[in-house]
């Protein structure tokens, strides 16, 4: 056996003096405006000028709440070289060089970005040398110290490393000068966000991903800070590995509570990829205990998990065709082969606990039983790209991982393969999806985070369509004819993410819906409202209504609007806006409302068919796609629900 090396022992001498938490700051949390309060802020008293007092959000802000860079262990292993700084630069519209060496630029800037690198294995180095300047008794140490002060920190750092290797490090350097040449990746991430956060123009959020993945079952959550570095810096991200971390979301919630209690800051969590959790994402029975979820679980979950990332590169999670057989749009970019590492195949009984719509329904059940709805979440889409590039447009898609950046190979390459289960996932199955849209009044951390907290958000699978969804008791058809639907919507109802209660006698909820297509994108096919409810026997139901649509079509006998058709020329990767409509506005009233039944309503906006990224690849690289490759896509947006409670 070898002896422990000197290096190892030296590495054991660590002083983290400078990393100790600062004293707690007494600050109140102002980030919890709920929709009821938000609604009250918008006076419904008529004034002459339609613009006076208009302080509601007028333009949705688009961003990505889930982007990895080379600082993520797996991204780095896949060859991602881009840093958080690169990621922010790209998102704000700059051209940068991707890890694969090719230039990359967005068609237009995003408004915000959360770099959410995995917390596990994030720390590049412990703070080995954080020490005190008075130890610089050794001349060599002093020289290095001065070099660092003079801006030559990197040179000194390298020499220190080489000295380590040769065993010639001065003894006093065990503690070293206050150099911090061994930075840590979390501090670097925070610093990058601080540098690129540009209130009013571009918001760079501080965040990370907590990656609970026991036995390959995806229970991942992204944690987003409302706060700046002064608070985020006081804490280190929560990890999943024992003994310090845990793979149980309950422990993450405790961590979030501890952070808020100590710093006065605010954080929220966004879960994703229930489709890869094998029935564990939205449980009725907790996988960790085998027992039904209890009061504490539902309360904590509803408190901390305000949003769910319902669409991303690894599959869409709004609905599953087996759960919603009457919904012809339910089978969208479906990934239902098994869990994240493809080690256990999917069985149909798992699906109910994986998809957004079924979770929203089960949430009503749990609320009836336990008094709190744990699955009362708003919706966002995001990329989960591991490239540092939030590039989710079909004709400008930079893949999920670095090997999936544009190349002639990606149309035919294999992404996941498990020999034991026989599950294979091809690169072409990865979706160019999606983004988070937020109705915030200002482009700042505070304003966007607060809108997330009150769930005034929607998911898009990539296009930047503007989607409004208001619920109330008094919307009438004339409201869809006004010049300013936003003002009417806030004036007479609650926006997406809000609540309706206490139905006035004899009234059914009515909804003002509006959608404007992406200014450089495809026309819209239809605006649908998805309703879910709980009947008096405790059973849940769902129904999809077509409420607005483009072109000269009529509702069929089955209550559905016929297909809009397709203009896609797959071979040339083109389409035309000759079908559908650029804008849809309507008022819809629930025709089968029962004031005794709990319900939720959310909007789903369907685009006309367009070429999928695979069609652009086939055209640009001249590659022949594999048999069965999907070449067209029907993009969509999903709004946060509005809930009704008797």
């Amino acid at each position, binding site marked *: *056996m*070898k*002896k*422990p090396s*000197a290096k190892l*022992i030296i590495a*054991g*001498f*660590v*002083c*983290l003096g400078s990393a100790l*938490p600062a004293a707690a700051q007494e600050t109140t949390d102002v980030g919890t405006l709920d929709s009821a309060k938000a609604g009250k802020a918008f006076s419904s008293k008529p004034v002459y000028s*339609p613009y006076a007092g208009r302080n509601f959000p007028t*333009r949705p802000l688009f961003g990505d709440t889930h982007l990895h860079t080379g600082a993520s*262990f797996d991204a*780095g*292993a896949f*060859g991602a070289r881009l840093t958080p700084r690169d990621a922010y630069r790209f998102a704000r519209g700059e051209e940068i060089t991707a890890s694969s060496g090719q230039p990359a630029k967005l068609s*237009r800037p995003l408004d915000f970005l959360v770099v959410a690198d995995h917390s596990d294995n994030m720390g*590049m180095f412990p703070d080995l040398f954080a020490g005190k300047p008075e*130890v610089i008794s050794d001349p060599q140490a002093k020289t290095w110290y001065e070099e*660092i002060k*003079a*801006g*030559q*920190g*990197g*040179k000194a750092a*390298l020499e220190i490393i080489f000295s380590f290797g040769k065993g010639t490090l001065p*003894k006093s350097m*065990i*503690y070293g000068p206050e150099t911090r040449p061994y*930075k840590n990746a979390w501090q670097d991430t925070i*610093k990058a966000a601080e*540098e*690129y956060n*540009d209130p009013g123009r571009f918001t760079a959020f501080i965040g990370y991903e907590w990656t609970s993945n026991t036995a390959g079952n995806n229970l991942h959550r992204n944690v987003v800070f409302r706060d700046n570095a002064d608070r985020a810096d*006081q804490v280190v991200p929560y*990890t999943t590995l024992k*003994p*310090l971390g845990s793979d149980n979301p309950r422990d993450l919630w405790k*961590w979030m509570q*501890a*952070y808020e*209690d100590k*710093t006065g800051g605010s954080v929220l969590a966004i879960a994703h990829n229930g489709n890869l959790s094998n029935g564990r994402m939205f449980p009725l029975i907790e996988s960790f205990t085998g027992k039904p979820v209890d009061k504490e679980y539902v309360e904590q979950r509803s408190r901390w998990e305000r949003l769910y990332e319902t669409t991303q590169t690894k599959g869409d999670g709004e609905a599953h065709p087996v759960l919603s057989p009457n919904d012809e749009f339910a089978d969208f970019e479906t990934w239902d082969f098994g869990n994240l590492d493809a080690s256990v195949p999917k069985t149909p009984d798992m699906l109910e606990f994986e998809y957004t719509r079924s979770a929203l329904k089960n949430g009503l059940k749990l609320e009836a039983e336990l008094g709190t709805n744990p699955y009362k979440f708003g919706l966002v889409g995001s990329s989960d790209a591991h490239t540092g590039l939030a590039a989710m447009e079909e004709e400008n898609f930079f893949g999920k991982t670095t090997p999936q950046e544009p190349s002639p190979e990606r149309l035919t390459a294999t992404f996941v393969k498990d020999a034991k289960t026989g599950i294979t996932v091809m690169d072409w199955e990865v979706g160019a999806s999606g983004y988070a849209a937020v109705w915030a009044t200002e482009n700042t951390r505070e304003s966007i985070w607060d809108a997330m907290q009150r769930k005034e958000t929607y998911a898009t699978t990539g296009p930047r369509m503007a989607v409004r969804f208001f619920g109330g008791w008094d919307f009438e058809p004339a409201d*869809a*004819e006004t*010049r*300013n*639907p936003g003002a009417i919507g806030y004036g007479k109802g609650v926006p997406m993410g809000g609540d309706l209660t206490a139905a006035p006698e004899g009234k059914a909820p009515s909804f003002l819906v*509006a959608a*404007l*297509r992406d*200014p*450089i994108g495809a026309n819209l096919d239809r605006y649908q409202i998805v309703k879910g409810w709980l009947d008096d026997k405790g059973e849940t139901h769902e129904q999809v209504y077509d409420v607005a649509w*483009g072109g000269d079509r009529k509702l069929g006998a089955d209550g559905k609007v016929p297909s809009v058709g397709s203009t896609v020329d797959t071979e040339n990767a083109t389409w035309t*806006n000759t079908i559908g409509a*650029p*804008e849809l506005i309507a008022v819809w009233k629930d025709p089968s409302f029962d004031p005794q039944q709990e319900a939720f309503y959310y909007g789903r906006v369907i685009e006309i068919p367009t070429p999928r990224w695979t069609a652009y690849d086939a055209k640009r690289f001249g590659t022949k796609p594999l048999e069965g490759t999907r070449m067209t896509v029907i993009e969509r947006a999903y709004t946060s629900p509005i809930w009704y409670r008797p």
Partner: protein
Amino acid sequence: MPAVKPAAGRSGSASGERVSTIYLKRVLREPLVHFLALALLIFAGYGLLGVDTGDKPDTIVVTAPKIEQMATVFTKTWQRPPTAEELKGLIDDYVKEEILVRQALELGLDRDDTVVRRRLRQKMEFLNAADAETLTATDAELDAYLKANAATFEIAPMLAFQQVFLNPQRRGETLAQDAASVREALLTDPAMDPSLLGDPTLLPSDLPLSDKTSIGQTFGAEFVEVLDKIPAGQWTGPVNSGFGLHLIRVTERVPGRVPTLDEVRDAVAREWTNAKRKELEDQRFAELLKRYVVSIESPAGAGTDP
């Protein structure tokens, strides 16, 4: 689990009692001498000075500073110090990891492992990266950088305008005609409230002063280019967008300009630092490269083009 006691007794004393402040202060006050003494002991004992330990079993020393580091990470994670039991858990896990890592290294499991190699490369690059704090520019340097990269920092032109929207789906064949009569009405009666005209839309009818990029986000970039050429004051159009036709009145226009350093100091400093960082990294890599003679063989069957 290996039952390992902390090497130095004092680190194990953090019990569950509420002593966070005291504990932290104590860590800060810890005499340096203590560390040095320990260091020397361990150096002497474990071969740094060339002492061979012969057949004795390998030794794992969980040093006091290592324990402190673990305790500090715990404290930063949970915003409270670990209990004695929690600290023991951390130490036991560290020992387990240390043993497995040593075994793996002996078996050479680190060699030719893509992930390990990439991680090592990443660590070197991370070290190689210049510290932002150590790079500080003078005002003269920043000013020169701003002048040399004026386009990067340019404040975009801003426009404020009103618009009346006509939806082709609603108007059908009368679209052009309707647009003409709306324009006529607006021009004839300057007191006319434009919000009474046109079709319902999510597009704002009255946009306050906004930069061209942000207008483009809503109306499309081509529309903004047309808008930019319209003289202020008068209703004009119709202008085509991806959504339909618009009658436009530009109410205010602020041309783009290069800002002064004071206006954009942070952004200039950030970009200057990034550029400098890149330059230093390249320079450092060039220095490393000098230590090697790199010879690249032609792959068999490769072309012979120069």
